[in-house]
């Protein structure tokens, strides 16, 4: 009896290898989801044509196939270079991007002369340009995956990227208005009339890499040295320095570039990475108080002195009561709300709405335009897709093993979510409307490119997080008693309360 009990009682002294869990890459799941997404995009195209042209042209599948081909290329890059990356990210983003292209093409069909509609070339109009931008963006994302084999290598360029980010933010602010102003917001660098880029979209990524790196190095100081007040730990004044600097930058963006959305985005991004790094709720409180204080101050100043604050004041006024001036100032927001209302629960059907009535429907108001046609039922599906993308990003952040990766992935995923909140909140009159793009849906190369790069980084981090531990650490296998290698170069900081 004792003999029988022995093997169970003495743990693991005899020969079993520790269970090697079969880590599954789930690449085939990704491929089939991608195929389903492309079927959806093709179905959307067909329904639009059935509604608008009263017939389905034999070429309805061409845009979906072109998108499918380039996404398949990215899938292959992932399969070989990031085999353990998250399987849900690529198909979800591909669906949003595909529906965006489909909806923009639908607007082109709407604007084209009835005689030209059936023969509209696939690279024609806004939809065609968006399709071309998608191809470019996906190729860039693939290139990033090829170049960046390990997300930790980015931290080497953190300070360079931080500087580049600030310069990119500043360029439109200092350029004269005719080079940088579109629709009242100075967010652009214009090269002639045809081509303009929005450097802020790329600055977002660069700044986030810098934030993540800075906070990994400073987190100890930020989370340990604090004074307790009203049951909440507040950090010391000198540690607040960088936060205040970023706050000032975001206010500068607000004032000189007249864009509340981008400013909210930068600030939210920094506060949340700070919160992830230190686990202190006080940062969130400080952040919220600073932002709302700043925004309220801008509102008051806009009322009293106008000037650079006037734009923000106007937007806040429209938000408070869009129906006060429904034919002029409040026109866009009112039309957006009416479109969403017309859509109702199930929408007018793809191709059945009136997106021509909505100003900027291809851009800021794309969500209202789509909402009119697919209704609350479809819009909530799209929002869930966004939610899933953000969730997968946060999941990668939780699972990855190094602090830099955690902050990077967490910050990127949150930024994407915040951007969706800012624009969808804007068009549904939850918050003042700001000129943000809807990630992956809106027409615009800069936004699309930057967001695809963001997804490439998330894919890379999730690959690092889910990859099973193999080999590695070969350099460590040396006599334990030997001379210790040089200690990590992080400076020691003396903490005095």
């Amino acid at each position: 009896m004792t003999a029988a009990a022995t093997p169970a009682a003495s743990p693991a002294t005899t020969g079993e290898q520790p269970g090697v869990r079969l880590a599954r890459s789930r690449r085939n799941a990704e491929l089939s989801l991608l195929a389903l997404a492309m079927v959806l995009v093709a179905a959307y195209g067909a329904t639009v044509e059935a509604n608008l042209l009263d017939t389905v042209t034999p070429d309805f599948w061409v845009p979906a196939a072109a998108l499918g081909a380039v996404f398949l290329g990215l899938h292959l890059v992932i399969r070989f270079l990031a085999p353990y990356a998250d399987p849900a990210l690529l198909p979800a983003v591909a669906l949003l991007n595909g529906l965006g292209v489909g909806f923009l093409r639908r607007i082109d069909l709407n604007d084209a002369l009835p005689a030209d509609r059936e023969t509209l070339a696939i690279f024609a109009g806004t939809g065609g340009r968006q399709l071309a931008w998608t191809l470019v963006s996906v190729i860039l994302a693939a290139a990033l995956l090829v170049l960046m084999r390990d997300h930790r290598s980015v931290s080497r360029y953190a300070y360079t990227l931080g500087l580049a980010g600030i310069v990119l933010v500043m360029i439109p602010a200092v350029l004269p208005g005719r080079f940088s102003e579109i629709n009242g917001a100075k967010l652009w660098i214009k090269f002639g009339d045809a081509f303009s880029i929005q450097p802020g979209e790329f600055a977002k990524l660069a700044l986030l890499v810098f934030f993540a790196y800075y906070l990994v190095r400073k987190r100890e100081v930020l989370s340990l040295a604090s004074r307790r007040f009203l049951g909440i730990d507040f950090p010391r004044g000198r540690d607040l320095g960088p936060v205040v600097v970023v706050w000032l930058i975001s206010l500068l963006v607000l004032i000189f570039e007249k864009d509340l959305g981008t400013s909210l985005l930068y600030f939210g991004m920094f506060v949340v990475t700070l919160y992830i790094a230190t686990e202190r709720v006080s940062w969130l409180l400080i952040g919220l108080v600073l932002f709302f204080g700043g925004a309220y101050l801008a509102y008051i100043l806009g009322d009293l002195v106008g000037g650079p604050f006037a734009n923000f004041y106007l937007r806040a006024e429209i938000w408070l009561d869009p129906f006060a001036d429904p034919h002029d100032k409040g026109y866009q927001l009112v039309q957006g709300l009416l479109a969403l209302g017309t859509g109702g629960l199930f929408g007018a059907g793809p191709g059945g709405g009136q997106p021509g009535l909505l100003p900027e429907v291809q851009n800021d108001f794309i969500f209202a335009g789509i909402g009119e046609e697919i209704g609350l039922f479809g819009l909530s599906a799209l929002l869930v897709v966004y939610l899933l993308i953000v969730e997968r990003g946060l999941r990668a952040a939780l699972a990855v093993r190094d602090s830099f990766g955690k902050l990077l992935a967490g910050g990127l995923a949150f930024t994407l979510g915040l951007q969706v909140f800012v624009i969808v909140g804007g068009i549904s009159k939850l918050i003042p409307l700001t000129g943000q793009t809807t990630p992956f849906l809106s027409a615009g190369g800069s936004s699309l490119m930057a967001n695809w790069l963001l997804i490439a980084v998330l894919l890379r981090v999730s690959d690092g997080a889910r990859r099973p531990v193999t080999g590695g650490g070969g350099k460590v296998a040396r006599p334990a008693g030997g001379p210790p290698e040089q200690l990590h170069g992080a400076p020691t900081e003396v903490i005095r309360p």
Partner: protein
Amino acid sequence: MPELVITVARFGFLILLWIFVFTVVGVIRRDLFAGARSGRLVAAPRAVGASTGQQAARPAKVKRGRAAHQLVVTAGQLAGTRITLGDAQITIGRAEDSTLVITDDYASARHARLVPRDGQWFVEDLGSTNGTYLDRAKVTGPTPVPLGVPIRIGRTSLELRP
């Protein structure tokens, strides 16, 4: 186009959209519960199958639940991190190429490592400045690590879990 076709297409698209959402959720769900389930469904039979060639399958089967499958960080900044154990060693330290990179003031660049030998994990200090502790005892040479006993490095605690 007949009205009926358009109506079917319109609602069919919405339904397809939600089918996509639920398929994605399904993929994610399998992913989420993979960690909890694989202890009995995936990992163990594979390991047994793999080991039959070299060693007796029976003791492996008996101790199936007892072998360490995961390294869990229970305290410190990385708390909640899980590493799935394979048959490769785990290095712990501040150096960027460690398996588990800990940013802890009391950790050295190459602090300690966990090495599997015949199904048992051993912890070994790599000449760290502040030392590695297994529960309360300082680790001097390679020491076997039982399941659920904390390994302490600075403010960080690690545990092996089945």
